């Protein structure tokens, strides 16, 4: 069943925002003189995810200016990429948005394939599997965001429920790729290997169990007075701002900006699935929460359709200059040994050129702008981080709010250090 929130976001008229604490205090706040006080939050602060620092100026409880500082997790994705072969970059993409690694894998692989001119030749099964793992990653991403956000507001139970469900998915992906979190499962031209035999039945089972978990969380949060009071009408962003600041993904859609790459520029095989793009009506924290909750439902719809339509066939491109030869050949014939050697050591040679390829990541449009000089490694490999605009706009959203509002607002932006600082 779909969460009640979804019905709200889908119905025509805007949701009536019950302005809670803030309005009340505005009304009967005694007009005391107070001088501005600087206040520092983070970088090591329970609500700052360890990698963000906010230098606030407050008057009483109210924030007058907020200077958000990132960069505490700058791991030089670009510099490392410029010194690695095209394939060696996959592990680095895993660690960009480490809550949805598969989505980064897919996005990067597609960018390189465009540059190689093989993006039309990727086997259909590989594309379906990429959709499957991508949507699973999207679900883990949103679950983590909602769970952590709720926990930071003191609601510990949904956090435990959601992480329990996330654990099921991690174990599934681990069985598939060998790693719980940093999978590096995608390769240029396809995938490292095919799905495990019982992947589909297990995923079906997990989806069924997850429905229950989502119902629980929905009941625990969506109508929870305390939760609503801290989410409703807090951190409102207008559609125009969303566009001018480059907000995409759940944050952008919460403002009513109906932009989802999967719908507007279908890639892989997304045009073959029937799913909705939830859109908010107010652009406040609750909308961001509701959109994410609903997107989990939609992702599950996609997963089910993808599992039904999953075709047989090869899982990677059959091109000796891109795909590795079979291991048995590699060890037993000089030809395959050389091919393996050249692909691993010199890297796949990508023709010189530039491309900007974009997919729908966990936080929005995940773009890869890649410049190749024709050698085995990129001249430049830039990732367009979807959550940088979301964090950047905080400096505009926070002033006027209370200090306590930072926690839900920042939480719902779902800032991921690895992706924001790269």
């Amino acid at each position, binding site marked *: 069943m779909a969460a009640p929130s979804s019905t709200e976001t889908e119905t025509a008229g805007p949701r009536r925002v019950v302005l809670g604490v803030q309005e009340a205090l505005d009304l009967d706040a005694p007009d005391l003189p107070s001088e501005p006080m600087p206040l520092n939050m983070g970088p090591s602060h329970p609500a700052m995810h360890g990698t963000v620092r906010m230098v606030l100026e407050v008057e009483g409880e109210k924030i007058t200016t907020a200077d958000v500082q990132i960069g505490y997790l700058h791991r030089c994705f670009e510099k490392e990429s410029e*010194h690695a*072969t095209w394939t060696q970059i996959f592990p680095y993409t895993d660690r960009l948005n480490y809550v949805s690694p598969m989505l980064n894998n897919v996005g990067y692989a597609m960018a390189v394939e465009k540059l190689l001119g093989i993006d039309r030749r990727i086997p259909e099964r590989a594309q379906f599997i990429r959709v499957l793992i991508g949507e699973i990653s999207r679900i883990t991403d949103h679950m983590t965001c909602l769970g952590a956000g709720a926990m930071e507001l003191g609601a510990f139970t949904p956090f435990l429920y959601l992480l329990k469900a996330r654990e099921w998915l991690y174990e599934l992906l681990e069985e598939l790729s060998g790693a719980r979190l940093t999978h590096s499962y995608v390769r240029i031209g396809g995938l490292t290997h095919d799905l495990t035999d019982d992947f589909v039945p297990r995923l079906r089972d997990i989806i069924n169990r997850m429905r229950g978990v989502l119902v629980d969380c929905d009941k625990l949060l969506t109508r929870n007075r305390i939760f609503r009071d801290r989410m409703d009408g807090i951190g409102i962003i207008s559609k125009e701002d969303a566009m001018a600041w480059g907000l995409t993904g759940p944050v952008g859609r919460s403002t009513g900006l109906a932009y989802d790459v999967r719908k507007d520029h279908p890639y892989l095989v997304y045009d073959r699935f029937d799913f909705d793009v939830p859109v908010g009506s107010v652009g406040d924290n609750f909308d961001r929460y509701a959109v994410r909750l609903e997107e989990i439902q939609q992702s599950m719809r996609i997963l089910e359709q993808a599992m039904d339509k999953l075709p047989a066939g090869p899982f990677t491109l059959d091109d*000796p*200059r891109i795909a590795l*030869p079979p291991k048995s*050949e590699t*060890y*037993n*014939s*000089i*030809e*395959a*040994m*050389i*091919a393996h*050697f*050249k692909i691993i*050591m*010199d*890297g796949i040679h990508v023709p010189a050129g530039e491309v900007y390829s974009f997919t729908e990541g966990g936080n929005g449009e995940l773009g890869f702008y890649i410049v190749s000089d024709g*050698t*085995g*490694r990129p001249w430049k490999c830039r990732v367009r981080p979807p959550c940088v605009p979301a964090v950047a706009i905080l400096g505009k959203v926070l002033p006027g709010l209370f200090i306590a509002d930072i926690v839900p607002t920042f939480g719902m932006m779902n800032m991921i250090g690895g992706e924001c600082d790269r």
Partner: protein
Amino acid sequence: MSVGVPPPVPSSPFSPAVQPPSSAAALSTETVTVTIDGRVHQVPKGMNLLEACNQAGCNVPYFCYHPGLTSPAVCRQCLVDVKGSPKPVPSCYTPVTDKMEVTTNSPKVLDVRRQMLEFTLLNHPIDCPICDKAGECTLQKLYFDWDAKLARNDGIKVRKDKVVDVGKNVVLDQERCILCTRCIRVCNEVARSPDLTFVNRGDHEILTTAPGRRLDNPYALNTVDVCPVGALTSKDFRFSMRVWELYTTPSVCTGCATGCNTEIHSSRGRVHRLVPRQNLDVNAFWMCDEGRFTYKELHQGRAVAPRAAGSPADWDSALDDAARRLRSALDAGPQRAGIALSAACTNEDLHAAACLAFDHLGIERVYLTGRPAGWHDDILVSADKNPNTAGARAIAGPKLKSAADLAADIKSGTLGALLAVGDVFDLPADVPLGRVDALVALASHMTAMAEAAHVLLPLSAWAEVDGTITNRQGRVQRLRPAIPPPGDSLPGWEILSHLARKFGAAMELDSARAVFAEAKAKHAFMKDADWGRAHLPVQLRFASSRG
């Protein structure tokens, strides 16, 4: 021959044998018209077809052909279609003729290429993981570029000797050899000592040393360079580093006055080998084994920290001490002070030294020192073992004294203060350096002079600095930094400008390039020298410049 006497500069840097047989120099000026892959090209008459094709941008692969050697046409990899000939012809062996029509990419040609590669790989061992050539191997490259198909047979490969000690620097693996004869031709045509040959026939044919000979000629390691596979490997380099991890920096050999152009292959602050870089006017494609080993000195007995009065000091105090000692000696009498320039220093260091000594300190006595002269031949090696003698003479001016004079003056005690720029090697061991009241040495190695110096200022060596040196032909060639200098050592020009500041002299030199510009404006021999463009050290795996 002492450094005092200028070495005889051969009119042409090469004896005819080293002159590339088919390089443009050897070609007549009249041109012929050939059609290559449908496009018409004008090429010099007598040029061989392979070069014509590659010049025209149609990439024709080859194993046995080498631009610096004659063409035997044994590998059959460069076969192309020539209109009128019944079967494909080896382009490396076919001179272009007028109205020739050539196809380098017809299905037939491509198929022949593939089949030749398959044939070459038939007996090739599965050695890549343990082969030193892997990563810069021509066989790997050509297979991947032109074949890339999986094996069609799993027959037993012919076994041959894996480790044959053919010379003092080279090891041979006969299984890997693809019988291209490049090494044999290098010995015959470049080193002019026929050390290698083939024996047996068919797939039992092997490379081996000629009867009664070993591969011990001074150019033996060039065979390792030209070997398209890992058959011949250098004892010095093998198993020490995987080539694709190395970073390459263009440089110049400092082993002698010839100044062969080289590539420095380094990794993590260590130089692992030197290989020749093509320059038809200096060394063509070759260099001598001695020169290849000059990198070893970079990591041995280096002076890493400033020393004042025998104890380690920081730069500032060491410079102060040096300035004080020199100043007092100069006050005692400028004529008792002298400066010793090493012919191994870069033009920039020498220019800075000259400015300081002549213009600011008014020192008259100039000694030119350096490595003692050694053996030479008429191929590449010159007797003068200093890379920059020509530059040093030009910069130090007319009234130069030799190292012998330096020894004499020290003995006689007429030398009160000495500023030694660069390593001084050629002093007799019995020279009483203690007699010099103020001895300030800029040295990169702990030589006797450096040990005895009152103040030691550590100097960066040739692989760590930006600069230029002048070879025996008077060519000004560029050195580039490949590795970071060890310890606190600095480039000479920088040390000297700091020292000048201590004397209150205005010598504001902020970069090697600025010094170069200044020297260029001042000295005639540098007037048409060019600093060259910036270069990033690039990893060999991404340079795709070898193999």
